[in-house]
């Protein structure tokens, strides 16, 4: 297993070897055109996307629903197979990995999902869910595993009693902490966070974001933080990439993108963030916005 400090075959060596480097990532859904089926309906969910994430940093991937953000998140971990493109994860080209190698890679690069109510097995007590990644990657005795799990559960702010609970006995915020503990227990270098707080209420959102921030500083983890909520991205991201209809419209330093957005769509997204005071909020009213953007803006307002 390559660690991210070792120099993998990176196509464009910038600074340190990036945790994640993606070139021309493409995913097309729908049937391929064949002799019998000529004009098959195909959807390009992800269209030639390039991304880089440096060690210990966070890339915020933003865009409206259906922009292909989550698909990118799953593609870079090869949870779904890309149709084209090159993915270098922790210095390894993951296209060439066998199933076993890919499975072992998951100890170092994993994912946190949007809905904590459904991302944990409802039939497993919390301790078994947290321990599971350690168990499948081996190398620890049973008592070591549970000790590590307990330490991890405490680290994410839960108590010993939670270890014995079942998911239906816990709140969304607690469950997302469990999901974080589960993801972190194998000490990964890279985590895809797919809308990790979208299912939580606003007061818990900040707590979970802060936890992710703290853990990043402690452990030097890189995040691919997927969200439609620009306010959250502003809190956590070092760099921002904006997606729409499967294409990457703009990427760059988070401060720069928020202060001087280059792309018209980024400006629209930013304008759609609700203001601090209800009086400064406005619906629609964007110069040259089409109907579709109008609904996206409304969604932003509601969220």
């Amino acid at each position: 297993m390559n660690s991210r400090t070792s120099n993998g075959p990176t196509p464009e060596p910038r600074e340190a070897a990036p945790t994640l480097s993606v070139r021309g990532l493409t995913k097309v859904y729908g049937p391929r055109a064949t002799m019998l089926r000529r004009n098959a309906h195909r959807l390009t969910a992800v269209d030639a996307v390039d991304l880089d994430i440096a060690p210990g940093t966070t890339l915020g991937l933003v865009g409206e629903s259906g922009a292909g953000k989550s698909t990118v998140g799953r593609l870079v971990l090869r949870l779904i197979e890309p149709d084209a493109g090159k993915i270098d994860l922790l210095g390894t080209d993951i296209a060439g990995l066998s199933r076993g190698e890919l499975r072992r890679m998951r100890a170092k690069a994993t994912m946190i999902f949007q809905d904590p109510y459904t991302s944990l097995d409802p039939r497993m007590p919390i301790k078994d869910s947290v321990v599971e990644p350690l168990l499948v990657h081996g190398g620890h005795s049973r008592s070591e595993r549970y000790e590590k799990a307990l330490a991890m559960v405490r680290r994410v702010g839960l108590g010993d009693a939670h270890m014995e609970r079942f998911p239906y006995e816990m709140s969304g915020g607690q469950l997302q902490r469990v999901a974080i503990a589960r993801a972190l227990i194998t000490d990964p270098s890279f985590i895809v966070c797919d809308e990790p707080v979208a299912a939580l209420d606003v007061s818990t959102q900040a707590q979970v974001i802060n936890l992710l921030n703290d853990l990043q500083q402690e452990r030097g983890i890189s995040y691919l933080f997927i969200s439609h909520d620009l306010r959250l991205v502003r809190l956590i991201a070092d760099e921002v990439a904006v997606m729409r209809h499967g294409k990457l419209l703009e990427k760059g330093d988070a401060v720069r993108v928020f202060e001087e957005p280059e792309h018209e769509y980024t400006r629209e997204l930013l304008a759609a963030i609700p203001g601090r005071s209800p009086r400064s909020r406005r619906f629609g009213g964007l110069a040259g916005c089409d109907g579709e953007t109008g609904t996206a803006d409304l969604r932003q307002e509601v969220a």
Partner: protein
Amino acid sequence: MTAHESVGTKERRRRRSRVLRRLLRNRAAVVSMAVLAVLGLVAIFADLLAPDDPNKVALVLRLTPPSAEHWLGTDALGRDVLSRVLVATRVDLLASLQAVGIALVVGVPLGIVAGYWGGIGDSLLSRVIDALMMLPPLILAVVVVAILGPGLSNAMLAIAIVIIPSFYRVVRASTQTASSELYIESARASGCTSWRILWRHILPAVAPPLLVQASFSASVVIVAEASLSFLGLGARAPQATWGLMLKEASSNLTTSSYLIYPPAIMVAITILALSLLGDGLRDALGRQTTDGR
């Protein structure tokens, strides 16, 4: 460590008791469980309970109606009907377990694999299963017995083949539902092997509907055994099964109608208990364990 382990067993007991409590609140289910427990005990201790040797022929006593000596009378060969019906309980329940067991062992892995991986294997397998389901069940069983030869074990194998499709379908459908759950993707993202995902995450999700299906199928098997034995394709002559007893009773029906009741009532009680237990299980397991909330 020991402290929170004891908490753990308590929590687990609490969760399991939720299903049990719902099952116990269902009076029909409780009664059927009691009936099945009694039937099970009868099956185990049949030899001790039987007042007489079930195969002892006494032609002098043939077709005597119920009396103090032979509570349920004697059959055409003078054998004690009570002893035979008790011993038949064991044979029938074991045969039923055998058929359901075979169907589980074959149907569950096929259903899980087809439901989880899908693709061409699933399509092919599902076509074969559909074809199997299109054939009338009894005719199919008769054909299988004709190929394998008569006998109780072969009859049970035939019935197993008949009920495999229902197991396959139940398992495949619930596997498909479970596979699309986020926690399965989460398990993959954590690096679980497919084997572990199927064994630790899919199978527990499939278990509740499977349990219901198994208890319904067991009642189907009891009836099927009776039908096949009645047709002379199941158990053979000296052996005591309910189906065979019905067959023998039917030839003396006009003179000794009392012979038909013991096996008929046993079959009726058993299938009623199994179906009601199936209903109770279905209600008790309900959304609660599949959803977990």
